[in-house]
């Protein structure tokens, strides 16, 4: 064994692992961020200190959002005043609501139930109480 074999093994394995980490993360990120073409758009608006929702057919809801199991939803996230962050922890939906800018997040619920919605960016006095509910119902 040459005096530098260990160094080359060390360098080779570490570079190989780092390349794997980069490629795999890139592939997963692309997959996770790809919004399905048939996803229904839901406009989500954050303002001090509640969430409001508008469905594609114009139906509006405040604080409680009703969705159907087995459908994909594309959230268009707006803010009317300050920075908020739209978060549904149980479904890994987490995106900032920025005044003057539209952010996107998507998900497709595959089980029914009631799940908490919360603001995850400190947005003022009643930030702690800027909560809502997501109700996922069975598709009729």
């Amino acid at each position, binding site marked *: *064994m040459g005096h530098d074999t260990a160094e080359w093994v060390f360098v080779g*394995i570490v570079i190989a692992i780092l390349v794997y980490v980069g490629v795999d993360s890139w592939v997963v990120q692309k997959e996770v961020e790809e919004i*399905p073409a*048939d996803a229904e758009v839901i406009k989500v608006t954050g303002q001090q200190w509640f969430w409001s929702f508008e469905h594609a057919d114009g139906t509006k809801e405040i604080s409680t959002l009703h969705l159907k199991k087995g459908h994909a939803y594309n959230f268009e996230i707006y803010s009317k005043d300050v920075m908020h962050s739209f978060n549904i922890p149980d479904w890994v939906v987490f995106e900032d609501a920025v005044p003057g800018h539209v952010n996107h997040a998507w*998900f497709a619920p595959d089980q029914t139930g009631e799940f908490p919605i919360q603001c995850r960016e400190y947005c003022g006095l009643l930030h702690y109480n800027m909560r809502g509910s997501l109700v996922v119902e069975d598709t009729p």
Partner: protein
Amino acid sequence: MKRIIAVSIIALIALALVPQVHFAHAQEKSAKQYINLRAEVWNEFFRMTTAAFTVGAVVSGTMIWLVWRFRESHPKNKAPTKWEKLDDPTTGTYEKEGH
């Protein structure tokens, strides 16, 4: 040593192939099925954790091997190097050794 290298390479190949199998199955989904974001994110987390621990094992393993191999009492270190040939090291000087 060759066995360690072979095992490391096999482990790396397995590490690279597992997600490919996963994605091959993912492509079989019908138009109405969507990926499970929670599963994707957690799977990625566990794969990255595996990679991180592998890097840690390689780095610390190499350092442990270096310390073990180049210790003073290692049989291969019995013969003095060309910088250690003075009969009485306390009488030597760096200037003399350098030439």
